[in-house]
């Protein structure tokens, strides 16, 4: 195992990495920006080094400074955590060039998965289903009509060179197709100088389901079941749970195996997440692969009793993955709430500042886990994300997990900044969430109802 690693991250992420490193007897070098010099987690690292100013570009995204620090402190490896440089192929490449092991996938795989079109093609070839639609750009209206008949309406027309909704049309039936096709083509031509359109089935009321995978450097991969991450506002996840109430045991087994196989076939190494969109009929369609450990990994750890980050270290040190799929059991249900310094009643506006009181709920039999770097008196600086902590509860079933999480949230005292706890309480209490039959539109529905009902 590595003797010493550099943590190219901050806050809660860095605290999590220090914990895993200590478990493995690995020394840590924590980096910090000028704004983070008092961050409590720095005390837990073996060595500390300031790498630049408060702006991320000067510090946590400053590759030269990070690489220099790794060299100067004789680090064998760098853990990028998540966010910042975690999915930066260039950074991973620079690390490999100087023989500081990047704890994550190889740079080529990061680059491949970073190119969404190539990632889709790769994973389709590796056996994962994509949203039904055209195979590339369509050449005629007849072709679009055929696709519509085949995949069913509504369908989405999208500009090949598109972005920002330009050249995009939702078509709900064949009768409007000719008109929409014409409009979208002209719009795309005007905006991008490229009339090329492609077509895919529009998935409404989709659910965000993602599978956790672990793959070693020798082509062996396993999956750690799925997480449901449909509770989002503006594509920011608020609550995640595992397993998903929408995934049956058969689907988990079948899709999990396909995911593990596809990851291995794509040359994936280390921890990664394969994201799917689930339609109302329960079909899963590959969206993208995240080449990092995710914020919400603790829910998978809770239901499998596997320390994913420990495996990240081991895989990076070329240890073959000892886990076999048949040995991995999924037990109970885990729910994670991201508690941020944000005001949920002011469109989640950031609320940085000093945390005057911080009293997390007591754990009790491993049912409650709090992942954080924060201690009383700590400051949430305005420069970065506003994560205070993650609260994770595990119960023997979903019902119990929700109750435990609600109880823990109510016992949680944080003063000095606004937090997202009220939003979590409202969501967990909502009939829609408790029923398990929710989709990515749940947050505005629940919160609007809460505000209209004067629930504040």
């Amino acid at each position, binding site marked *: *195992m*590595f*003797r*010493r690693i550099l943590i190219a991250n901050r806050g809660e992420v860095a605290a999590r990495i220090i914990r895993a490193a200590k478990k493995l007897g690995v020394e840590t070098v924590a980096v910090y920006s000028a704004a983070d010099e008092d961050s409590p987690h720095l005390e837990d690292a073996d060595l500390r080094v300031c790498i630049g100013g408060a702006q991320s570009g000067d510090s946590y995204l400053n590759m030269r400074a990070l690489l220099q620090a790794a060299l100067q402190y*004789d*680090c*064998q*490896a760098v853990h990028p955590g998540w966010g910042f440089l975690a999915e930066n192929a260039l950074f991973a490449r620079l690390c490999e060039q100087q*023989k*500081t*092991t990047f704890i994550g996938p190889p740079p080529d795989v990061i680059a491949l998965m970073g190119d969404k079109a190539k990632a889709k093609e790769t994973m389709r070839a590796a056996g994962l289903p994509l949203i039904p639609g055209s195979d590339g750009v369509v050449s005629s209206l007849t072709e679009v009509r055929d696709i519509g008949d085949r995949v069913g309406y509504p369908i989405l027309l999208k500009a090949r060179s598109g972005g920002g909704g330009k050249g995009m049309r939702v078509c709900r039936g064949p009768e409007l197709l000719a008109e929409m096709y014409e409009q979208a083509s002209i719009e795309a031509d005007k905006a991008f100088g490229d009339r090329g359109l492609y077509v895919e089935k529009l998935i409404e009321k989709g659910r965000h389901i993602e599978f956790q995978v672990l793959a070693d450097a*020798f082509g062996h991969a396993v999956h750690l079941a799925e997480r449901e991450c449909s509770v989002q506002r503006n594509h920011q996840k608020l609550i995640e749970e595992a397993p998903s109430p929408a995934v049956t045991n058969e689907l988990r087994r079948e899709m999990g195996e396909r995911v593990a196989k596809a990851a291995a076939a794509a040359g994936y190494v280390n921890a990664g997440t394969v994201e799917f969109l689930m339609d109302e009929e329960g079909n899963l369609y590959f969206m993208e692969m995240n080449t990092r450990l995710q914020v919400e990994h603790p829910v998978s750890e809770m239901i499998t009793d596997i320390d994913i980050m420990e495996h990240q270290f*081991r895989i990076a*040190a*070329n*240890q*073959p993955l000892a886990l076999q799929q048949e040995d991995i059991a999924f037990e109970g249900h885990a729910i994670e709430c991201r508690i941020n310094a944000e005001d949920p009643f002011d469109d989640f506006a950031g609320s940085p500042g000093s945390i005057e009181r911080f009293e997390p709920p007591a754990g009790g039999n491993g049912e409650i886990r709090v992942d954080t770097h924060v201690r009383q008196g700590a400051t949430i600086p305005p420069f970065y994300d506003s994560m205070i902590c993650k609260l994770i509860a595990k119960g023997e079933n979903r019902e119990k997990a929700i109750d435990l999480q609600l109880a823990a949230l109510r016992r949680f005292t944080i003063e000095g900044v606004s937090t997202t706890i009220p939003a979590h309480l409202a969501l967990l209490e909502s009939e829609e969430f408790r029923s398990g039959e929710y989709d990515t539109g749940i947050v505005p529905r629940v919160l609007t109802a809460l505000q209209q009902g004067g629930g504040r």
Partner: protein
Amino acid sequence: MAKVVLEDIGVPIGKLLDSTEYESNVRHMRSLEQTILERRDEVAAGWGPEYVERVHHKGKLTTWERIDLLKDPDTPVFPVGTFVNYGIEYGDPPRKSPGAGVVTAFVKVCGRHTVVIANDNTVASGSWWPQTPEKIIRAQEIALRLRVPVIYLIDCSGLNLPEQANTFPGKYGAGKIFKMNSLLSAEQVPQVAGVFGDCIAGGGYMPIISDKVVMTENAYMVIAGAALVKGGKSQTITSVDIGGPDIHVHISNCADMRAPDDPTAIEMIRREIEKLPTTAIEYYRYGMSPVEPRFPTTELTGLMPVDYRMAYDMRQVISRLVDASLFWELLPEVGQEMIIGVGRVSGLYTGFIANNQFLTEHPEDPHNTRPGGLLYQQGIAKISAFSRACNADGIPIVWLQDISGFDIGPEAEKHGLLGYGSDLLYTNSTNTTPMITILLRKASGAGYYAMSGHPYDPVLQLSTPITRLAVMEGRTLAIGAYRTKLDHNFNIITDDPEERAKVEQGMAGVEARITKDMDPFRSARQRDTDEIVLMGELRDYLKTIIEMSYQSIGYRRVKTPRIWSLHDLAAMFRRI
């Protein structure tokens, strides 16, 4: 007709000798082979179970366990130098060094032949004994000659210091290993090293020049280990801290990859070998598949007579070594005491030069015959020409020696055998095509040299259980030594019973000592031959070394059979 037409030369064993004789031959050979098998086991056991246990206790595999993981499943390993240092003891208290503490072998890895050099960690922690460097250098030399990848499995605590005067300073001292590393590298011979444990001083230099270096978590490479650093610098620190993978893989860049344990490191080495070009072997088979001889090689155990003075049919030896027992014999009419020709071994063209054991007609006196197993003028000329032609065509040559030496006497000098012999030596010395020498039985005197014995740099020299390697037979030397006491028929002249007994005893003593020195184990012990193999293994070793000779491209001449120089030779002598 520039065609190569091979003909069936095989004769069933039952037609060659009766079953009683065959069985008696087999029994004799089997008893000799039994000794070889037992001694192989003895060498493979290293210093025994106690040391195997020590290795396992450290979380490591033994050298043979590593080789077993490294090789392709179900493929044989062909060790060379097994009996180096056999029976020799060094130090105080005296200890043996089985295999000189290192395994060198031909091992198939990911479909490619490789030369593996692996310190035996069950013998004094893989340290280097007298002759260990020479054994390693020989393996490197074979790899360099044939451009075959080298894999080092290193677990070596350095020179065995009490014996340093024998291993350190000489031309073939330990430092020559690093020179060979460099030459291999300069000739683009791939070298991959796995470091599995100690790798101190000299051991530390050995892997560094390799293209790829894998280190396990148990491994360290240091100029000086913890003990010396403590003595010299008063620092207390472990050797792994000084030069483990944390330092060399990530910080000093003296190694490339880290592996948690031995099996993973070996898997990583295999993956490196897999990245190399595949072999040209199939290409050079010219469409023919390898096929076993019509009659099994193991029949050689019964073909070779118990009495070393008895003749046997050398063509039938060849028929049991070549594919389908098919052979193209060239110039059978001239120099009949020699057999030359081309066969396939594993589908690959191979030249054979062998001593006919039977009496042959004297070329100038058809009523007279001459004994076989000797070199006469025409035979020497024939094999010189064949050796040159094979070299020109890039055909590997197998020398099948059962030779008593050059013919002697007035006729030999009149025929200028010194000149013809020297031409042969010159030819063989300057040949670049791979030559393999098999000391089938007698390898005597200048005949051993003239037929590409070890000093003439064959890529491999094999001995058999009945090899007799010497300047001359014991009986011959005894006669020479007591010449003044003997008459023209080599009978003792004196009638004095006491004197007679003295001469008899003296002659018997000389003969016994020489015979003992001709024991193949003696030459194997001092590296005068590469390996002693069983009769039944001869073809397997040949297949491997011939395949190795055709594995890599771009470094030596290999002509299409259409334009072989051999055809010129055949055409000129063809009777019209």
